């Protein structure tokens, strides 16, 4: 059995003096799509940021992609892709230029970058279009292609469906399923339970900084 992508045991993270994560434990394996659900302020975003190496862990233990959260946070960042409300794209550059730039930051070859564009369906019609002229869904797809070009192995997505219309959401879900099938591990924090729930292979409730795995028969809201 391969090593888990995310392995947290009683992890505590604080924002100021507030314990945003109060002893979180979870194990996530390669190819999982995990939905984090919970009210605002429950700790979903902090959990994503902890997994990205952006928030220090003050107690407990944890490894992300084999890197220790206590001592190797900088190394984690290079292997993790975070997508929040913004896409992290350069609006005046074309789709192709954005993806090539992000790929080049990790030394990706031209063929790797092209493969990322093909995988996300932006290699033909959209490649020379400035990002500024794209729809919200196309921008999201371009941002995900940048994650692929960056060789991100763990995708941490915070409300990825926000601001997208129905067809763009369907497009995003298909992209995420395809990415997981290709080996990416995906953690999604979302309030859109029906949509994200149908996408996820596992659901975890985040309540007051603690995590509770939801049994498969209780995953989808009625």
């Amino acid at each position, binding site marked *: 059995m391969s090593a888990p992508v995310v392995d947290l045991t009683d992890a505590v993270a604080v924002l100021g003096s507030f314990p945003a994560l109060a002893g979180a434990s979870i194990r996530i394996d390669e190819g999982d799509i995990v939905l984090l659900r919970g009210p605002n302020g429950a700790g979903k975003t902090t959990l994503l940021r902890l997994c*990205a*190496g*952006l928030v220090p862990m003050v107690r407990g233990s944890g490894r992300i992609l084999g890197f220790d959260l206590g001592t190797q946070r*900088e*190394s*984690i*960042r*290079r292997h993790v*892709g*975070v997508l*929040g*409300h*913004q*896409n*992290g*794209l*350069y*609006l*005046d*550059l074309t789709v192709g*230029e954005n993806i090539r*730039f*992000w790929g*080049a*930051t*990790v*030394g990706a070859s031209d063929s790797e970058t092209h493969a990322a564009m093909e995988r996300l369906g932006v290699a033909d019609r959209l490649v020379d279009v*400035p*990002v500024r002229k794209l729809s919200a869904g196309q*921008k999201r797809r371009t941002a995900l292609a940048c994650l692929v070009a*960056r060789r991100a192995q763990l995708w941490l997505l915070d409300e990825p469906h926000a601001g997208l219309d129905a067809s763009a959401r369907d497009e995003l879900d298909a992209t995420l399923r395809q990415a997981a099938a290709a080996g990416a591990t995906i953690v999604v924090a979302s309030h859109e339970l029906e949509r994200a729930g149908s996408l996820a292979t596992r659901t975890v409730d985040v309540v007051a900084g603690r995590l509770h795995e939801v049994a498969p028969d209780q995953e989808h809201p009625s």
Partner: protein
Amino acid sequence: MSVWRIARLVAAKDLRIEWHSRVLTNQVLPFAGVTMVIFAFALDSDAVLERVAPGLVWLATMFSMLVLVQRTFAVETDDGALDALRVAGVDPRAIFLGKAGGLAVQLLVLEVVLLFAAVVLFRQTVPVDGLVLLVTTLISATCGLAAVGTLYGGLAAGFRGRETLLPLLTLPAVAPVLIGATRAVEAALGTAGAVVSDGWPWVGLLLVFAVAFGVGGSLAFGPLIDE
């Protein structure tokens, strides 16, 4: 990936953005040109203009630099790209050096155009024996300006009211460049009886300034853009 390789990528990316958006050619250069013309109207005396032309070139450069710095960080914050670079673990020293490099290239273009404008508008001449001093001054002053602009641009990028904060932070910090570069260019052009040898100590000051802000900026940039 080495710091220098990433820095080259960031600089090339910034120059490509400028190539697409043409902000330098369509907005900054006309702004700088108008500034020079307004100075000419305000001073309204050929003798005075000939005497102060080097200082006017650098004043117009600094005002225009503020527009360039705002722009170079606006492209990073429009869609969260600067955050994405940080989150992706890209070395902040490389981001600083790359952005400063891209800004330096744009500033150099601006300065050459402004010098040309000074020759035409203010009847300046460029003696052959002052050319080396002039070029060295342009390069060293540009490096200092780009380092300061990038450092404070990165700092201001995270604040509300960045448009007003940036000039407040930047203009006092670049005062030594304004003084040193003006004196060195006066020496290169022979303004008011200055000779070329008068300019080299000022170039020394500009180089020290550029190295101090280049090294200090690359070390401080990470904590500045981090939370």
